[in-house]
């Protein structure tokens, strides 16, 4: 219940943020100079993974993000990263290490005014990850204990050469804070399409995909700071800017 409240509150805040944004637009007058669109490459880093690496001792991760503006609304986008995560569950303790790469596109649904260069996008990615898993220790599940329970078995067995591929649906925001600096965040819903599992264990965590559940689905999140490298500019007719309400 508390969580639901928290979630609802967050959604409200998010909506509020966008509303404020929308109001800001209306103040702008329609006597506009020709609109200049800048095209180029935006590269950034995921602060969420980076900060987690500091405060969570069982986690180390780094993700570099990038996009390249192809047309007015389409961006070629991708992420590359590395994760090292130890999970300590009741009956299992394992470490997953690996590298991933995601490539796809973003579609900007946000109509920018004048020289604004914000992006509210939806997109798709195809993700590939290669990784290894080390089973640190595990326990035999015994629903009917009678004799003294054996202690957790220290295994240190390593499963190498694992891989997974998935499709990712992305929705996110990239807002220009000043000059060429952008901050953004995105939510991701993932669906596995290929998963090479070890024999005698399972891929319970996949770098880039995150925790796996019983089905094929997973969720992800990132929070990025990026730098935009402008490459060229185009001018579009003034009229284009005025039509939309």
């Amino acid at each position: 219940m508390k969580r639901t409240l928290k979630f609802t509150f967050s959604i409200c805040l998010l909506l509020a943020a966008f509303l404020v944004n929308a109001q800001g637009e209306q103040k702008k007058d329609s006597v506009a100079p020709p609109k200049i669109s800048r095209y180029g490459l935006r590269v950034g880093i995921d602060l969420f993974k980076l900060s987690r690496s500091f405060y969570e001792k069982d986690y180390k991760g780094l993700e570099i993000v990038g996009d390249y503006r192809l047309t007015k609304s389409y961006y070629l986008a991708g992420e590359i990263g590395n994760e090292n995560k130890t999970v300590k569950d009741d009956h299992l303790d394992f470490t997953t290490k690996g590298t991933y790469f995601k490539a796809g596109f973003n579609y900007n649904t946000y109509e920018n005014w004048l020289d604004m260069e914000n992006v509210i996008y939806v997109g798709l990615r195809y993700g590939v990850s290669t990784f290894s898993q080390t089973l640190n220790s595990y326990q035999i599940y015994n629903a009917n204990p009678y004799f003294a329970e054996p202690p957790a078995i220290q295994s240190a067995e390593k499963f190498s050469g694992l891989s997974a591929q998935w499709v990712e649906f992305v929705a996110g925001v990239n807002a220009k804070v000043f000059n060429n600096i952008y901050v953004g965040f995105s939510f991701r819903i993932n669906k596995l399409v290929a998963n090479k599992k070890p024999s005698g264990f399972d891929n319970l965590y996949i770098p880039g995909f995150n925790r796996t559940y019983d089905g094929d689905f997973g969720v992800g999140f990132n929070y990025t700071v990026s730098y935009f490298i402008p490459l060229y500019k185009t001018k579009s007719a003034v009229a284009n800017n005025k039509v939309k309400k």
Partner: protein
Amino acid sequence: MKKIAAILAMVLLVNGFSACEKDDICADTTPTTPRLIIEFYLKGSAATLKPVTNLKVVGDGMENGIVFNPTATGEAQYLTNDSKVAIPLDLSKDTVAYDFTLNANDTITNRTDRLVFNYTRNQFYVSRACGYKMLFTLNNLPGLPSAYILNNTQPAVAGNWISRVSVQTYNINNEDETHIKIYF
């Protein structure tokens, strides 16, 4: 201003997500480490189930018997009058010894037989919530101690109340089938 709001919202959302993690527990319906299923039959009959009378089963070196009747209090919880019992095997050894005492609540008519089961163990991965399970195979190869030994005599002869033991299946993979039949 709006940026601050957006960042705040994000932080809250992330909090919400991380609070959702680690919520799975091993369901009772998931087959995990099985117990040995023993059924009791009428001596000389192949198919007539015979309920035991106040049977108590105590592991070697254990103080208390296996709890058959968790709702009862005192000594009664260790007694069963069923024709079927499930007894756990030892997860850390390839052998387990149990004393089967019939009429355990009666100091005059009680009879005890010791049964030793010999087996090999194999671990199998189940799931994130359940971890691993142990499956057993009762010994069925020459050179190994036999699957069961009654009162330390081999080959088994009739015991104090048990007339005959019969292995139904050597593979103990689940609790849905009967592994051992005891005739008395």
